[in-house]
């Protein structure tokens, strides 16, 4: 059980690291609020399949603050957390691509994708 809990925590940390990187790549271009609005929309869409995402949805987080999301993901089984994150990420990318095209989306998020997943700055403090 503890192992499963640790896995969910890890999933949550990785997910938040990914969102953090996306926010860093996108906020300078579209503004922090612009980036946050897209993230919120993804949360809302994913919430339909993962009702436990209600908490981060309702939280009035500042742009770039993913703490509520981290807590929600960490509280779920790892598989569920990963599936929710996956759903959000797909929704987010589809949404952005529908607005500015797949090619420009890839280009704008290149910095986020290039960042190694294990980058120290995205590690959870132990």
């Amino acid at each position: 059980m503890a192992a499963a809990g640790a896995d969910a925590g890890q999933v949550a940390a990785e997910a938040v690291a990914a969102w953090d990187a996306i926010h860093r790549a996108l906020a300078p271009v579209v503004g922090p609020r612009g980036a946050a609005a897209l993230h919120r929309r993804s949360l809302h869409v994913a919430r339909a399949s993962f009702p436990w995402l209600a908490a981060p949805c309702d939280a009035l987080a500042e742009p770039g603050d993913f703490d509520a999301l981290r807590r929600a993901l960490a509280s779920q089984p790892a598989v569920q957390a990963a599936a929710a994150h996956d759903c959000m990420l797909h929704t987010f990318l589809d949404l952005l691509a529908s607005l500015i095209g797949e090619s420009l989306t890839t280009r704008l998020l290149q910095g986020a994708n290039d960042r190694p997943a294990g980058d120290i700055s995205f590690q959870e403090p132990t």
Partner: protein
Amino acid sequence: MTDTRPVIARLGTGVQGLDQVLGGGLPEFSFNVIAGPPGCGKTTLAHQMMFALATPQRPALYFTVLGEPPLKMLRYQQQFEFFDERKVNACIRFVNVSAEAATGDLQQVLARIATEVEAHDPRLVFVDSFRSVVLAQDRGRSFIGLQEFVQQLGLLMTSWQATTFLIGEYFTENDPNPVFTVADGLIWLRQSVQRNSVVRKMEIMKMRGQATLAGLHSFRIGNGGLQVFAPPELQRGRPPAEAGSGAPRLEMGVAGLDEMMGGGLPRGYSLLVAGPTGAGKSILASAFLVEGARRGEAGVIAAFERRPNAAQGPVMTQLIGSGRVGVIDARAPGLSVDEIATLLIAEVRRLEATRVVIDSLSGFELALAPTFREDFRESLSRMVLALASTGATVLMTSELEDRYDDLRFSPYGTAFLTDAIIVQRYIEVDSRLRRVMAVAKVRDSAHSNELRLYEIDDTGIRIGTTLEGYEGLLGGRPSRRDRRSDPVDG
């Protein structure tokens, strides 16, 4: 003494016609304002220039402030052909400073711009839109005023050797806005509305260090972005001696007409064919182009008649289809004479055409936006001169209401513009409507003074004889002449 004055490099804007209007391009390191009401194409102009100018050696920063959400801007600007997404985040960076602007403190906006400029060392900087900077300042607690903001920004950009653009809205021309004083260049975009026609116009109200083309210049926004229509320039490089009465003559493609003109139409001349509806002006114009094509000369036609393709006949349709005769699309709303002139000259150059037809001036005037009709004569004169300077020979038709009490060639006073005139008329003879034509003028050349009957059939125009034994032909109702009382025959 050696000249130690700084040399101002001029940047090609990538906007068709704009460099000409600017007087040779955009001065490097200049501080420019692009002003105008919403929807007039300011952001598009800025993007078009940025995508044309930005290179790895000349990177660009595009600051978006509070106005149009950047996502939407990127969405819409991508629809233009100039938007090269490979340049984004490579040599073009978009930077949103809405968070700083939202504080209402212009110093914060300036500080953020300075930080980004220091980080990326751009050669081109755009701030879109300036209006939101002004609004942000209006809201609040700014420690510096607008004028100071602009001055500091100008200073910063000049010392960073960045050519800068402020994109603004809602400026009024009469308002002595401090921004205008600081700016080196002021590009004003307008939408002129007259009746139900809307025409986009651009004016360079200021551009330090160079002579711009004064006046309002119409422009269009298409898939390729903006295209500015500057007044047609006289073309250089063609020996003028080649044109004129001593020049080789062009065959008209109608048997007998060349003889009437004293051996054809001198190359480089402009010819006006004036006549009433149905007299065969378009047929004559087509024959002129077909004859050119037969001799291996390319032609260009601007057809303003209602159904251009149907009116030209199968041979012309074939020539157009095979690309030997270029067609100017004259159906766009809100046309200006300068636009048609620009298109015609570009097509003449592309095809190395020697024959140009404008069919007809009456249709041309109707196709113009109302705002341009008043200046039709002046603009037309400029266009004819510019076309002549390409070395091409121009044939224009003009619809002429049949008036039998006077001999007029065109309702626009355009007759004086042209080097040669052919006039067509209807006359009534023995209860039949017959057509006659005459060569009224071929500058510096002898020509026939006969009024010749002609017919139009499937093969085109067939010129016949003079109508012997009649007088008063131009009155429309000729009468038989009494030979005994006529001392001169002919």
